[in-house]
């Protein structure tokens, strides 16, 4: 079931009305930009959780 985490970035990024805004800003970045950039480490992290849960077969 952990594998379902891999779907999260698709939901978070492919529904643009979630993030097509200017506010709130972060370090001068409009929301549109920092939201999508934040998905980069988040996706890595989620994939890492899934990685730890699969059987390692070389």
């Amino acid at each position, binding site marked *: 079931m952990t594998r379902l985490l891999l779907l999260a*970035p698709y939901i978070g990024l492919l529904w*643009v*009305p979630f993030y097509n805004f200017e506010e709130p800003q972060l370090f*001068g*970045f409009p929301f549109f930009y920092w939201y999508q950039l934040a998905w980069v480490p988040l996706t890595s992290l989620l994939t890492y959780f899934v990685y730890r849960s699969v059987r390692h*077969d070389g």
Partner: protein
Amino acid sequence: MTANIDMSALAVFIFFFVLVTAMGFFASRWRRAESLDHLDEWGLGGRKFGTWITWFLVGGDFYTAYTVIAVPALVYAIGAYGFFALPYTIIVYPLVFAVMPLLWKAAKERGYVTAGDVVRGTYGSRALELAVASTGVIATMPYIALQLIGMEVAIKALGLTGEMPIILAFLVLALYTYSSGLRAPALIAFVKDIMIYIVVLAAIIVVPSKLGGYGAVFSAADAAFEAKGKGGILLDSTQLVPYVTLALGSALAAFMYPHTLTGIFASSGANTIRKNAVLLPAYTLLLGLLALLGYMGHAAGLQLESNNDVVPTLFKTLFPGWFAGFAFSAIAIGALVPAAVMSIGAANLFTRNFWKVWINPDVTAAGEAQVAKITSMLVKVGALLAILLLPTQFALDLQLLGGLWILQTLPALVFGLYTSWFRAPALLAGWAAGFIGGSALVWSDGLKPLHALAFDGVTVSVYTGLLALTLNVTVAVVVNLILPAKETADDDLTVVEAESRS
């Protein structure tokens, strides 16, 4: 652009170029194999690349020199819409994590080198193999040409004129790829990627500090789009669907290309690939920040002849000569790695799925390696001639179609990992429908990748590649249902079993 040559920039450029050339030739001795006279060695580096080498190689190969030039150029020209490359290069990795370890295992067990091998092994169909392999080759050729365009921009920024520098650079590349195979770009990728990281980090720290911070950069871009009356730092309502369909379609296509698949097959194991799916997004962060250079161009008030000049001009304007030279070297070397891997991927396809099948079935392992080496040279010379002799727009249009074409190989390449339901004639019919239908749509839309669909009076534009893939899968399903089931014959037709665990 003036013909002034900054000597310190040129010296830095020449230093790095000589360095990577030496590395390219030395690479044949790196992690030395008993002999390079085997396609597994020349074309896949012995399938022994561990996590870090794979990370540098795939990163260096997927985030190409053209990306470094074109993504900021697109963002400079139209704003937020150009950022679709960011969601694209994020959502591609969960897909790599889920699919590519299975494909690697099938390839390793059965000695597949190319996508064509996978398809023949899975479905036992020469026709489907030929369709997939030739799609791979023709989708890759214009991609190599684009790397040359990236390199041309960097060389021009140095103040060098004429075609000699680029011809020289490409011939040197062709020679060491010939002698070292995939080991050459794998080794050079270390240098290239580290250089690009330094360049981008410097840019995202130094440039905003000179231009008054990120807030000022975004406002300047916003004001510039306002004044132009085109583009913006947010998407307008007509851009939403194009943005996501381009991101999704590009992500599905990304690892179907011969150069990315070569990086996957060359890795040492399924786990190496999984770890890379976790680690490769580091490059995506870099790409996202790099894209912002387009906005920095507006904040710096650059006057450009062409949008593609935004990155080089920014470095020339805001950095000392030697560092600008370093940045241009990074971009030019950045073109060499993907161009080498692409030509190797295309050469592997030609050798395994065309030469060995149709010309000389009895070719030895050493003969195979020889054919691939020569093909890799011809492919590069072809790309060079295309850039020198044909209008640049031709390569750009073909590259755009190439993305649509390669996407049509996905069902044949991937579905067999999960189900044995599909049969070769159905997949072939689907491929043909997607390939021809998609190309015709792009053509009728004036070589634009978006097609307008009307639902109840509401018009939305969708990435044509995704429409073509939908047609492809639909046709494959229908044909498979209609076609009478044939008895499955020999071992060749055994479907690679999907992994049972999940």
